């Protein structure tokens, strides 16, 4: 197989995607391994290698002597063609062995539009795509990542889902597998039943779902008494003690995030009502500055990277930010290492912070006001004031920047055309601000307005919301284009058709599986890539399957309705979600976790909590 692989590499684009052999990859002696684990990323190597979560889990699993975890990426279409033509099944990066014979095959499901690619990878491995068609001799196929918080659209393909943070849970699952195999008690059914008792694992085949005539869910219950009614997500209690990879794999080819990625904290204090990450990663747990600094030094020594990026959902909310950056800068500056702080909030952007981040090479800054008026920013609980944004851009302009990028969303709940016009006006005021600064750079200002479409997400206060129709979204995009007249403002908008499909799968249920299977059969994959996204073909697939996409994307769900994702407990209570949803319609903000606890309920999950009151 190795030989064949080597030959076909000559005829594909970017062969460096498939070679493996990177410094830092983990090779183990197959004979000493009791669990071969394939960690699949349903997108290209360049994107998969940039995912910190995957790197973390790769390292955590490989710290176990009996487990060998390898990486698998989706082959690009030219490679797939060659593989199918020459009967080369999907292989793992490190050993080049076919993953068909592995014990556990896990998929990181990062966004809804990767579903066809994931299913296609199962097919490329030579395995049946539907879970019910795979027998005791085939690997257990597991899904995890953000999409697992509503895994229903892909529930028929996966045997099991890992809910929440996986570094401890996946090791426990593998140990159960090893134990059953060595005792000789393993059958797929028995393993899955036992696995459903481990906290954080959801086995969709162990639940019955019944529907009402109107298409809503009538009943969603476990088939057996010992199977939990609700699956509570897993969290890592203490980030200072938990595993963090300090010897990452060094890709040869350029990947999207080719730098040291240093995780600072999990969770977000803000509670923006549209944001899924802000809800599902609760409660907030921080790493202290010393842990961070030690890890950074270790990674630098092991990689030779010359850029460090501090990652989080909102870096300026990190309570040790100043202490940590001081500690880091003491050695990063002399070593010519750049420090970057993505995800900066405009209201915490200070001169001191700007001077610290060595953004010499960046000529611009990015902020995300999300909405054009204060009213709408309040309704979505962004908790950002125009004066804060103006203050931030002024500081940036005074500091020599001439480019600012502003992120907004169209189609947010309660949005009016006045709010859309507000985006154009806000951008104009940013332009005007620039020309009022005597010390501004000697070049024209460039303000980029980037507008995406709101996608209602499960486990958020906006989970019941309908998405605007495609026509509404397009009308709104056109309206904004007419309102932006200043040539110093560049306007980008997100393809509404893509967002609509995202909404369908975000809020979807089990009945969507057949559409995804049909789409894969029709050759659809890489839906998140412009060159392969085909909306009309998707609509055709839905029609053939008798599915109405509007039922999922454009219907307001009732507070008392059984939601497809109710089986998953993220720790945040439904009462809190309802409360937040109602407050949005009253344009009422909710204080952030640091100011005042709003009793979302996530503190019941425990852990080394930074802001939450401890449960007794």
């Amino acid at each position, binding site marked *: 197989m190795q*030989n064949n692989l080597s030959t076909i590499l000559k005829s594909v684009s970017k*062969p460096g995607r498939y*070679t493996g*052999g990177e410094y830092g990859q983990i090779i183990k002696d197959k004979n000493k391994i009791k669990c071969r684990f394939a960690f699949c990323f349903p997108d290209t190597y360049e994107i998969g290698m940039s995912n910190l979560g995957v790197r973390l889990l790769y390292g955590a699993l490989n710290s176990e002597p009996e487990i060998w975890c390898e990486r698998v990426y989706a082959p690009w279409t030219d490679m797939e063609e060659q593989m199918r033509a020459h009967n080369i099944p999907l292989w793992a990066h490190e050993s080049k062995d076919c993953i068909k014979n592995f014990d556990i095959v896990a998929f990181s499901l990062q966004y809804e539009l990767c579903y066809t690619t994931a299913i296609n990878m199962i097919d490329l491995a030579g395995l049946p795509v539907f879970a019910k068609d795979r027998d005791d001799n085939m690997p257990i196929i597991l899904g995890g990542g953000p999409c697992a918080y509503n895994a229903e659209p892909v529930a028929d393909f996966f045997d099991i889902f890992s809910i929440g943070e996986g570094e401890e849970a996946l090791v426990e699952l593998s140990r159960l597998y090893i134990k059953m195999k060595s005792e000789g008690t393993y059958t797929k059914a028995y393993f899955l039943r036992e696995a459903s008792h481990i906290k954080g694992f959801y086995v969709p085949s162990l639940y019955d779902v019944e529907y009402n005539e109107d298409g809503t869910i009538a009943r969603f219950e476990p088939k057996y008494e010992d199977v939990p009614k609700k699956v509570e997500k897993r969290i890592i209690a203490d980030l200072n003690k938990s595993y963090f990879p300090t010897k990452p794999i060094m890709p*040869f*080819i*350029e990947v999207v995030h080719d730098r040291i990625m240093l995780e600072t904290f999990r969770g977000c204090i803000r509670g923006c009502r549209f944001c899924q990450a802000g809800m599902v990663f609760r409660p907030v747990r921080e790493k202290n500055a010393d842990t961070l600094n030690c890890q950074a030094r270790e990674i630098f020594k092991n990689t*030779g990277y*010359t850029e460090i990026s501090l990652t989080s959902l909102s870096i300026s909310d990190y309570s040790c930010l100043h202490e940590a950056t001081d500690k880091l800068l003491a050695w990063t500056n002399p070593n010519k290492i750049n420090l970057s702080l993505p995800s900066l909030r405009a209201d915490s952007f200070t001169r001191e912070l700007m001077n610290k981040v060595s953004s*010499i090479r960046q000529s611009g800054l990015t902020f995300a006001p999300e909405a054009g008026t204060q009213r709408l920013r309040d309704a979505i609980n962004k908790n950002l004031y125009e004066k804060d944004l103006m203050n931030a851009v002024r500081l940036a302009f005074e500091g020599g920047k001439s480019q600012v990028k502003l992120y907004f969303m169209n189609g947010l709940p309660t949005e009016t055309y006045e709010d859309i016009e507000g985006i154009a006006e806000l951008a104009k005021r940013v332009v005007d601000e620039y020309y009022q600064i005597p010390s501004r750079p000697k070049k024209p200002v460039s303000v980029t307005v980037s507008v995406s479409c709101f996608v209602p997400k499960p486990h958020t206060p906006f989970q019941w919301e309908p998405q605007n129709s495609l026509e509404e979204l397009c009308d709104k995009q056109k309206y904004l284009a007419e309102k932006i007249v200043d040539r110093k403002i560049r306007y980008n908008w997100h393809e509404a058709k893509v967002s609509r499909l995202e909404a369908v799968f975000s809020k979807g249920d089990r009945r969507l599986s057949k559409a995804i299977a049909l789409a894969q059969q029709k050759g659809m994959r890489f839906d998140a890539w412009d060159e392969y996204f085909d909306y009309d073909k998707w609509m055709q697939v839905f029609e053939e399957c008798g599915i109405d996409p509007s039922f999922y994307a454009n219907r307001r769900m009732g507070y008392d309705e059984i939601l497809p994702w109710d089986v998953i407990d993220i720790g945040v209570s439904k009462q809190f979600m309802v409360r937040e949803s109602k407050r949005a319609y009253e344009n009422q903000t909710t204080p952030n976790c640091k100011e005042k606890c709003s009793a979302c309920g996530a503190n019941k999950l425990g852990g080394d909590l930074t802001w939450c009151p401890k449960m007794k």
Partner: protein
Amino acid sequence: MVPQNEIMQIRIKFKKYGSLMYISHLDLARTMQRIIVRAGIDIWYTEGFNPQPKIVFAVPLPVGVESECEYMDIKLNSFMDCEEIRQRLNANFPDEMEVIDVYVPEQKLKNITYIDYELLISSKAIDDNSPEQIEKLFSNDIFVTKRSKGTEKQVNVKEYINSLKATLIGKDLQIRAVICSGSDKNLNPELLIEAIKTNTRILNGSPLEELYSIKRKEMLDLSLNIFR
């Protein structure tokens, strides 16, 4: 700033083989910067707005070609023993790369004139007459289409060949060719394969049954001595 005379010039000769033949020159350059930094070698950085560790490579290696004789030159800010450098680099190299030698340069990189290539071909169409056929093929004018950046050009391969010898090794055909590979005159060895494909029957079947590999054996100067 370190005075110029204290900057130490170092030449590193290394191998790159196996699946790493698919790693392009640009990717190798970026990888090498990181290897040197993590090896703790006190490399000299370029001056200016965006300082970069200064590494100069000899004749870039085409994708799909292995090598036993790659060269790169670096400058050091402070003295380090050559053996120490060799060990540190090898400890930080990926599996399919290896340092062969570290020394103070004796010649200039531009003195490289030829590269001695080894081509290995395995195919059912190879027989006892194949070596003679190949040697004859390349002793005459032989034009091949060279494609680069969307343009096509006819190249007479013969003009680039200093010497060429073909032999049978078991059932496989081995070709050793010394071809022009300097900054003035340079030929991609894939064009030799192209010439064989278009003018013989040796490589005309299924790509999975007929295999070929290309490897750089040595870089040579004008007098055909091994480059130092």
